């Protein structure tokens, strides 16, 4: 096993050594269930409820899951000094960043994919609402996975800029929420170039197509490049430590 995978595995397992992972998983399912079935109407579950799922899940990711999962990645290592132990093992700085990244991403993706239980329950068993058009569901999940990859990278970057978990949590929360809702602000600005720019970086407008069954390469590239950018910056932040 490569050093990176060893780090990723340790990172992933460590989530389950604390109640944190369980709390986040339960809370997500509870809130998401409430949102989908209550807002959508429990007895009126239909195709619209799947759409609701794709509307609320990214918000849950941005406001709860990703900030909680990534807040300690690097911040806690720095605060407790374990970073010194980790970095002085024969690992590259990039192994550390990617290991941490995949460890956190693993947990988030499991959560994302587990939400597929909702549409499965509705259209297969026990509700059996009949055949579902799998296209939008599939593309919706592609969008969610891409969004998770980017959001986790951003969370990791922020965690590597501070040594306080709480600070990392709030800044990640803030940044992701702003990037999510910034598209709605576009309606209220009159300068067209500004509105376009806001729409361009808005995660919400980027994800919109996916949930309607459209996988646009431009959106895919947008998410992937944002992810790479955040990872490279996190790597630089770790490297800079040596030069304090």
């Amino acid at each position, binding site marked *: 096993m490569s*050093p990176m995978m060893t780090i990723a595995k340790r990172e992933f397992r*460590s989530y389950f050594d604390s109640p944190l992972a369980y709390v986040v998983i339960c809370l997500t399912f509870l809130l998401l269930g409430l949102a989908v079935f209550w807002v959508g109407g429990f007895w009126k579950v239909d195709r619209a409820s799947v759409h609701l799922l794709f509307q609320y899940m990214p918000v849950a990711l941005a406001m709860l899951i990703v900030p909680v999962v990534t807040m300690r990645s690097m911040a806690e290592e720095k605060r*407790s000094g374990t970073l*010194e132990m980790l*970095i*002085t093992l024969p*690992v590259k700085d990039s192994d550390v960043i990617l290991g941490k990244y995949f460890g956190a991403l693993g947990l988030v993706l499991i959560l994302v994919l587990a939400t597929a239980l909702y549409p499965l329950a509705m259209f297969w068993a026990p509700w059996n609402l009949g055949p579902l058009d799998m296209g939008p569901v599939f593309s919706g999940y592609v969008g969610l996975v891409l969004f998770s990859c980017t959001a986790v990278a951003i969370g990791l970057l922020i965690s590597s800029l501070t040594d306080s978990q709480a600070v990392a949590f709030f800044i990640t929360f803030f940044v992701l929420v702003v990037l999510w809702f910034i598209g709605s602000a576009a309606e209220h600005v009159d300068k067209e170039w500004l509105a376009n720019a806001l729409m361009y970086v808005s995660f919400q407008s980027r994800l919109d197509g996916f949930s309607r069954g459209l996988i646009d390469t431009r959106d895919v590239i947008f998410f992937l490049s944002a992810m790479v950018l955040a990872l490279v910056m996190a790597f630089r932040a770790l490297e800079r430590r040596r*030069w304090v």
Partner: protein
Amino acid sequence: MTSDVMISASGLTKQFGSNRALDNVTFDVTRGEVVGFLGPNGAGKSTTMRVLTCFLAPTAGTATVHGFDVFEDPLAVRRSLGYLPQRAPLYSDMSVQEYLLFAAQVRGMDESTFKSRLSKVIEVCGLAQTLTKQIAHLSHGYRQRVGLGQALIHDPPILILDEPTSDLDPNEKAEVLRYIKDIGENRTILLSTHNLAEVEDSCARAIIVSKGRVVADGALDEIRSTTGRVRYVVAVDEKVAEGSHKPPSARELQGALDALKGVRGSKELPTDEKAHRFELSGAQDSDLRAELYRLMVQKGWTLLELRRDAQSLDAVFRELTRGDEELDRGRPVIDDDEDDDDSAENSDDKE
């Protein structure tokens, strides 16, 4: 550079903002050496070790470990090292065995090697009963043992240990020092400590740093003699003298001692009612014992004790790092040769 130089630091300087933590630190450590790295708090020991383990980059200067440059080949440097950082920071959510396995896996060790190394590490570090415990629940000393185990797991040719024994109980301390001495035969070990007795036990050589500078580097005997003085302790009976001679008063004795050639200073030591005791210091390469004996015979005094020893490492350490000490206490730095009162006394019971 010969292939036997395992650690080489040259001109290392590290600047933290306006604070110069290291100032032109230069030294070499060769294969088979166990070197004690000494210095007061904040002298720069940990900083030097962090540079050598590629955790920090120096502001100026270079270092090589096992022939690899810390800038150019940090991975090769770390592969040949076992490092125990100060206070042994460990993942508290893992069990001891998981942690050691993690360290071994990151180093790419295969399972059978790990098993055989693990049993050795368990024996040396005394971890048999704690293997399945979670690190968060360990006492401080046990954490340090795990940290040490982690540094030894791959049996590295070079060990850099930052205060490896600071929290250990005397039994484990002795075991660890014995092991260090054992493996030190064909490995290279740099260990920092505040315990000078430990250095005398396990190291043949010491490097003393103070305020980021190397102030002494050499074999222990050499370092002991760096202050260039030898200490004598003389005790003379204050009641009984030979034949018609009168026993000396303290002043008389001190006068006679000071008058001897080669005596640089004398100081009365506390004693019982029976004897006057004085401590003398003399030049490094002289021997005053014969002179002292003749003086006693000539005056007919009764010599009860005569001892000569090099200055203790303790005293040398204190002398070399006095600047630090004075600054810490907020006193002006005075260049004065005549103190070390208590350290001189401590060393009385040594030899």
